[in-house]
């Protein structure tokens, strides 16, 4: 595993300082990602998914308490870079991001084409004329007619704006694109169209995605590998084939059983209780108060990530 993965994350931590105490939003998270591979990060709201995106792109709020660990991109530890170096050489030129609800965050007074071209001008120093030309190409690639480059965001539909935001994330030819709930505000048919677009991009360019979503069914549209987050930690990390057919962690199993399906008959289950507060997560395994398979050890000692099969990690004492 050493040195082969494009992205290696080890013991990444992002804690926030709040009036009530320290919020452990991302707590010692490790995973790796190959070139051209898509990792889906799934979990319920408040489990630290979006904080993970912030930690990877170093877009941090002011109240950071702890931010450390190792993030290696092609062997280079990004955590050692200064703020300025990271901004100049990494963010957007190597790692770009599509934020949740980004289609509604376009600047209303700037033309769409200019906004798509901006990262090229800012990060790569491309002259304006050329950048605008590239923006038109990028729009065409995401399935929007290039004449829309000269329009303002309000003239585009929600789906078209989302495509424009994706074009913006791709224009600098990054190695990794982080998609944080990229379709959560869109209708199902539009969502399916955007997923088709992302699949095409994934096949055409050897690009890696980190796809963050709360929607398990939707995650299977892109995921080659899946990481399940619970209370700031990754509790299971495995291949898509394994995860969607045979999840191992009791939380993953319950989560899967609570997904309503259209084509198969199954009895829906739910998980009693609510996810814990990240201010004071339960000792031991963070899921043990809601887990029906808990043994005494679960409440006392935190389980390690156990490799139950090749590249299938489960953070649970049942597999120790």
């Amino acid at each position, binding site marked *: 595993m050493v040195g082969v993965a494009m992205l290696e994350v080890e013991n990444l931590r992002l804690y926030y300082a709040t009036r009530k105490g320290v919020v452990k939003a991302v707590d010692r998270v490790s995973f790796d990602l190959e070139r051209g591979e898509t990792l889906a990060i799934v979990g319920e709201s408040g489990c630290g998914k979006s904080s993970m995106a912030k930690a990877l792109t170093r877009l941090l709020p002011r109240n950071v308490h702890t931010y450390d660990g190792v993030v290696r991109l092609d062997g280079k530890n990004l955590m050692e870079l200064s703020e300025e170096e990271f901004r100049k050489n990494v963010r957007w030129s190597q790692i770009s991001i599509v934020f949740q609800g980004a289609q509604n965050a376009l600047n209303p007074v700037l033309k769409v084409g200019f906004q798509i071209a901006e990262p090229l001008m800012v990060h790569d120093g491309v002259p304006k004329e050329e950048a605008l030309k590239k923006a038109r190409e990028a729009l065409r690639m995401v*399935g929007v007619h290039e004449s829309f480059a000269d329009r303002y965001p309000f003239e585009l539909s929600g789906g078209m704006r989302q495509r424009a935001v994706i074009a913006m994330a791709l224009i600098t030819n990054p190695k990794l694109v982080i998609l944080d709930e990229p379709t959560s505000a869109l209708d*199902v048919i539009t969502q399916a169209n955007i997923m088709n677009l992302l699949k095409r991009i994934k096949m055409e360019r050897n690009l890696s995605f980190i796809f963050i979503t709360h*929607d398990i069914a939707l995650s299977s*549209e892109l995921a080659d590998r899946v990481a399940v987050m619970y209370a700031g930690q990754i509790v299971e990390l495995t291949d898509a084939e394994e*995860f969607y057919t045979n999840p191992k962690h009791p939380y993953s199993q319950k989560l899967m059983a609570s*997904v309503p399906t259209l084509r198969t008959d199954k009895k829906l289950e739910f998980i009693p209780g609510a996810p814990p507060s990240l201010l004071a997560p339960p000792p031991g395994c963070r899921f043990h108060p809601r887990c029906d398979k808990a043994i005494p050890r679960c409440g006392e000692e935190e389980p390690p990530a156990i490799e139950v099969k090749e590249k299938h990690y489960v953070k649970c004492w049942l597999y120790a």
Partner: protein
Amino acid sequence: MREVVGVSGNGYLLEVEDLKKWFEVRKGLFSNPLWLKAVDGVSFELKPGEAVSLVGESGSGKTTLGKTILLLHEPTDGKIIFKGEDVTHLKDKKRLMWYRRETALVQQDPFGAMPSFMTIYRILEEPLIIHKIGDKKEREERIYKALEEVRLTPVEDFAPKYPHMLSGGQLQRVAIARALILGPSLVVADEPVSMLDASVRVEILNLMREMQESRNITFIYITHDLSTTRYFSEWIFIMYAGHIVERGPTQRVIRNPLHPYTKALLAAIPDPDPENRKRFRDVPPGEPPALINPPPGCRFAPRCPQVMDKCKGEEPPEVEVEHNHFVKCWLYV
């Protein structure tokens, strides 16, 4: 077995005939007024105790239809008949109070739907006070019973709490308790679980279903999520751009969709499956039309993969293709 009290002669609790709700977006003083046709000619009937899922994308008019049925919007045209009485333009205050008692709404956002300065107890007492039901003692009994039914126990712990002290799932239980406390016979639930986490959604849906069945309530469940409808209702209505384009028994519509729009909607929804990433979804491009001066003819025609010349000029009628399974499409005429 089901009690049939106070329904019209034909056994329906609710009859909706060619209901329209148009919003005026530009006043016409010198020019023609502009209308946003959110609900544009909808007809259906429901018997007591029936549950229906009203499915559509955002902007399809599903919320407007739900609110118009509850007379929270004044209907523009058409008829609403409830328990045999025409309530479309109910003006008499007493009758309106009666209709408010008989109907209830559960909203999408439980945080926004609860006054933050009231305790849970007070929130549940409010409808009882407004409708002058019981004395203090009787009200307390009813409130505790309602909390127990939605399983917010021990009730003494929850009653004095304020909304911000509860989780989303717990608050939605309060919303359900409030909706049911006056014993309504018709409840509209507008996206009641879409703001909740996946793991608690099922719990809330199960609870609503249980209460709907045990109290024989007619339930309209508004949702954009087709995959939850199977677990909730025996009927399904599919809305597109202000029209109901297909309606029928839930299982039959999902297994054998007739309208091209319903087919597209079903094709767009993934089930968790590792094979998904290897194939493209067969969905039409484009987005729903604007409801201000919508296109003539079938409103799905501009996106429809099976469109014919006729579809663009003339609005299709609703046809009953099989027993109780209706579709509004020229392919079946």
